[in-house]
């Protein structure tokens, strides 16, 4: 396990933010910490990236203790925080060279790595413009590029796409996907199930400083019942008849039927209803959201 945490606790004043967190992340894998605001996601990242000290418990990254061997940890990790940490009044190139030099790549090493990263993140055209002229998506990409100056073995990404438009979000996802292919270990936090689903091998659900569930995206979704088809009918008798036929429960005039989300299943469902003389007024597909997962697992 390249990241390992045991019984990590943290309080700020009287408020307990983490009440005993255990984590293990195998090298080369992607772990998503999923949870609402205030769940403690950022605190986990701050402790693992040596910015905060745990009150109790211990954690190691690449075998180094995050408290006692903080400098060694810092030389193998990188952190991309929630707010882009870039200098507005430096150009993209200057920001990258600065971090490269602070990572001790040397003058020419930092220049060379900067060229590669500008290319990789599509910032070559904008490299000599000051960052304050960049769009939000470009800033995030530069921020991520700065984190990669020294080819870290472990990358922490704290809400990497919060506040980005869909286009920039998918560009970020592609960039993160590329890191995964290079074998980098990633721990990311997110509020979006879709993002965790798309990027992570394993998802840890965090709520009020506790881990409420952990597993692959499929395993978690299976626990909330996966996708559902919702049916509405014009009249009450039809609704009740359909409910009996499909042995499904109706709530507030809506019949919710488990589904695998395929067109084939939808056809079968509608054919079955038609064969029994039933015609739903409206049909809608419903995919589980973070809310559903939470309601199911924290209830």
């Amino acid at each position, binding site marked *: 396990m390249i990241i390992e945490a045991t019984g990590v606790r943290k309080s700020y004043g009287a408020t307990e933010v983490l009440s005993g967190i255990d984590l293990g992340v195998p090298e080369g894998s992607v772990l998503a910490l999923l949870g609402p605001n205030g769940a403690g996601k950022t605190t986990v990242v701050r402790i693992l990236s*040596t910015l905060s*000290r745990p009150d109790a418990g211990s954690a190691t990254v690449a075998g180094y203790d995050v408290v006692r061997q903080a400098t*060694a940890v810092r030389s193998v990790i*990188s*952190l991309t*925080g929630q707010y882009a*940490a870039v*200098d507005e009044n430096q150009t993209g190139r200057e920001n990258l060279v600065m971090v490269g030099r*602070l990572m001790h790549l040397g003058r020419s090493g930092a220049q060379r790595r900067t060229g590669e990263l500008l290319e990789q993140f599509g910032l070559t055209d904008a490299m000599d413009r000051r960052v304050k002229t960049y769009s939000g998506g470009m800033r995030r990409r530069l921020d991520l590029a700065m984190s990669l100056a020294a080819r870290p073995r472990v990358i922490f990404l704290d809400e990497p796409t919060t506040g980005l438009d869909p286009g920039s979000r998918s560009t970020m996802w592609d960039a993160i996907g590329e890191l995964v292919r290079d074998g980098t270990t990633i721990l990311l936090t997110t509020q979006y199930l879709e993002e965790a689903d798309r990027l992570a091998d394993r998802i840890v659900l965090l709520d009020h400083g506790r881990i409420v569930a952990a597993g692959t995206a499929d395993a978690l979704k299976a626990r909330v019942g996966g996708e559902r088809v919702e049916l509405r009918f014009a009249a009450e008798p039809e609704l009740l008849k359909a409910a009996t036929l499909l042995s499904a429960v109706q709530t507030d005039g809506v019949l919710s039927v488990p589904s695998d989300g395929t067109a084939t299943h939808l056809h079968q469902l509608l054919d079955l209803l038609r064969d029994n003389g039933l015609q739903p007024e409206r049909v809608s597909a419903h995919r589980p959201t973070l809310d559903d997962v939470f309601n199911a697992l924290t209830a």
Partner: protein
Amino acid sequence: MSHQGVAAALSDTATMIDRSVRLARRNGDTLFAAILLPLLMMALFVYVFGGAISTGTQYVNYVVPGMLLLTTGYGAASTAMAVADDMNSGMIDRLRSLPIRSISVLTGHVAASVARNALATAIVVLAALAMGFRPNANVSEWLAAVGLLLLYVVALSWLAAGLGVVARSVESASTLSFFMLFLPYLSSAFVPPETMPAWLRPISTHQPITPVIETVRGFLTGTPVGNNGVRALAWCCGLLAFSVLLATSLYRKHTRR
């Protein structure tokens, strides 16, 4: 620290100085405050108020040393703001997650502050010469005056860095550093303390800026320095030690894990 460690620390500090100087150079508002405002103030005092103030000498000769100290005040205020900006943005987390001594972020800003102040001071001196300032200092007196001013600027810059660390925002850093701009007015910078009311005179005489001004004035224009030289040196060294300790301990407290 190992030999290699020292080299790395020096290289990190050089990189951070490079960054701070570049950021300072590109911040138009800061440069305006650090250079243009002191020039305008000097013109105001020399041409508008000066005629009505009796100092027993050409007013421009009297006021220039005070103007130099006022200039450093403006420079220090922008340093506090630059530090506050870093402390309250994601930048400090990025720097702290790198395998460097993150305190070099303060060293960088202090060095940039000294460079900016040196530039501003040189420009103010040139402008003063154009306005009729006639110093009678020889080379060693010039060097002594410049050395004392430099020491004062380094001390004040560290103090400003400390204020920047505790400030909750860039705006409050600007407010906190207000006294640096105000203190020169309560010194012998613009009027002789003897002309002030009796209750204000001791404040004016015993605050740190007055001996520094009197010493610089003595070196440049030949007024008696007296024990002001020793007092100025003591104040500057004391302020420097205090400010470095304050800034570094506030930084540690603020970034305590």
